[in-house]
């Protein structure tokens, strides 16, 4: 359909409505003072990770810590505790992570994508993340190879998300936005799905995963050891 006429009508109305704005004022000419803080408080890397863990826990995520070597055992234990049998993973998840887990692993990719109905029959999903934000207790997924399509971390009821302490924890929202790529689909996750719609009584778990477990891993759990370098500032 052709909405070109409405486009011109709306833009014309906007321009007439703004007759009071000086013609030579550039869009950036209206000042925006960015004197707010880039982080709230100074944290050492260890303090930032502690803050992240505290804030995640505060919003009912389950937080675990591990080193690189212990990750496969921990993941195996968490999946067993949950009774998970079928686990979906993205193509870029290191094989080693689930090497110890006695589960059926289903790999999802854009070319071999599980349908929503198939995902609904999956018990758990294991992903990495793009970064985590300490001040808000948030993990951010950007559909990278170790995170996969957005739907795999949405439909299953149990999400295990691995965060590399060395290079994936930032302090604040402004720092996070600097590192994220807008052209990727982004999902910011702060605790499990929740609602306060009934008498403002908070209930964890409506449509997204009702259980979110975040594993904070020291060292570099990836197979290639081109890291770790600390990119936090």
């Amino acid at each position, binding site marked *: *359909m052709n*909405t070109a006429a*409405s486009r011109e*009508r*709306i833009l*014309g*109305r*906007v321009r*007439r*409505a*703004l007759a*009071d*704005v000086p013609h030579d*004022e550039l*869009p*950036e000419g*209206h000042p*925006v*003072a960015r*004197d*707010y803080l880039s982080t*709230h408080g100074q944290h050492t890397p260890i303090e930032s990770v502690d803050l992240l863990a505290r804030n995640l826990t505060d*919003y009912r995520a389950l937080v675990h810590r591990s080193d690189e070597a212990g990750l496969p055992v921990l993941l195996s234990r968490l999946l067993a505790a949950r009774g998970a049998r079928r686990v979906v993973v993205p193509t870029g998840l290191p094989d080693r992570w689930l090497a110890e887990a006695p589960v059926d692993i289903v790999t999802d990719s*854009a070319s071999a*994508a599980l349908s*929503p109905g198939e995902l*609904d029959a999956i018990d758990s999903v294991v992903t990495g993340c793009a970064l985590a*934000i300490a001040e*808000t*207790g*948030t993990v951010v997924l950007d*559909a990278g190879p170790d995170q996969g*399509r*957005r*739907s795999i971390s*949405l439909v299953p009821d149990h999400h295990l998300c691995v965060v590399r302490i060395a290079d994936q924890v930032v302090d604040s*929202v402004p720092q996070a*936005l600097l590192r994220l790529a*807008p*052209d990727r*689909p*982004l*999902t*910011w*996750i*702060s*605790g499990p*799905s*929740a*609602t*306060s*719609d*009934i*008498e*403002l*009584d908070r209930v964890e*778990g*409506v*449509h*997204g995963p009702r259980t979110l477990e975040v594993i904070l891993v020291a060292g570099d759990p990836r197979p290639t050891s081109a890291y770790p370098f600390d990119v936090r500032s």
Partner: protein
Amino acid sequence: MSSGRKGRHVGSATGPSDQADGGSLGRPHSATYLGMPAFPQAAAVSTRDSRLRSNLRHATHTIRAKRAQAVAELADWDRLRSAGAAIKDRTLRHLDHYLVQLEESVTRAGGRVHWAADAAEANRIVTELVRATGETEVVKVKSMTTQEIGLNEALERAGIHAYETDLAELIVQLGDDLPSHILVPAIHRNRGEIRDIFRDRMANWGRPAPEGLSDRSADLAEAARLHLREKFLRAKVGVSGANFMVAETGTLVIVESEGNGRMCLTLPETLISVVGIEKVVPTWRDLEVFLQTLPRSSTAERMNPYTSMWTGTTDGDGPRFFHLVLLDNGRTDTLADQVGRQALRCIRCSACLNVCPVYERAGGHAYGSPYPGPIGAILTPQLRGLASPLEESLPYASSLCGACFEVCPVAIDIPEVLVHLRERVVEGGVVTLRGTRTVIKPARRHRAERAMMRAARWTFDHPGALRHGQRLLSRTRGLLPGRLPGPGRAWTDTRELPDVPAESFRDWWARTRGDAT
């Protein structure tokens, strides 16, 4: 509230929840805002509903305290607030520039942009887009914009069923009801009522409520999860609004809690987002302000559980087709008002509702639009124009206490705009209506008020007349009625007439100080 307006409205005075009835398919139609009574009539009904008042009081006070705590965590709150206001002002002052930039960015990223001058056009565009997919149902993310334009009703008329998927919106939709709060639209319902609605109505819409459903919040949420999951899994078309649109990147942002938003934005093949033109922000970096101020102002959380950001379409991930419908529907008229345009900064957080003494007592339905509370009192009359007694009464739905301004994360001076709009109601003047500059007359009820003010001015300019009038009043004070007759009656609907003293101040002064004026 001074608007005791009697006998002019044409709508039902029995309260909004009675206004809709069952539809032709045995499927409830949503209630509508058409023919809503003016604020005082609606509030007179709602303030007598003690259960509503108690639900509202509990909810608003709880969240008010939590918000204050969440805000106090950020030492730079005032600076974030100023920056948020400045970013929105920058956007509004150059809205044409940013809209064109946004259109380019979204198109480059694989989306299609449509422009809708009004509600009818937006509904037509969405209906045709859904029809083109061959589907007859859509799943919806909570969106005030689509309520504003009556999209669900328009789709229903075209044989397309729109399913609300936010828990509170589901409660509202199943209950043939209207939302009453920006953040928690079913705030007027308690858990017992919600249980009854689920038990009685879910089967008409899909999967019935589980047998023996209790009124525990967790059980009710579980019932909603099961009921909606089958809809999410088969949905081919999703409809949403958006919290922000980034001009430089073409990114849209939705903040939510339940995951229904993620479902609607991720699983369908086609996504249609209907967004008001004022929701654009210039740059990616600007999000760093609003993603800090919105969650803390809204749900009083450091961050809401889920925020989705998408830029056009992504191969192999999420919808293959993305349509953005940019909606005017009165926003450019609002923009034309140099005082009133600040209302377009609003990021729909609902903090102003939760602190408002009038909202707490009157409830959301009395505001007669999807935008209740203080922000609704300045937004609705501007978006619609002063079109009926409802819109004329809204600027008076306030005690001007200023609490709304204090909590607003984009520093909208709501009292300033309220007073400005009151002046417009009483004095008339030049406004922009659907893009055309128009002179409106003073509201009819206010002509008597204006005549009285003119008479008062004359009296004060003529001290002799004032003195004689006061003496006459004193001598006849035993005969004065408790309520004013004629046009003054409305004023005394909500007020006691002051007692007339036996002696006027002037006479007392002259008698005791000995020197008459």
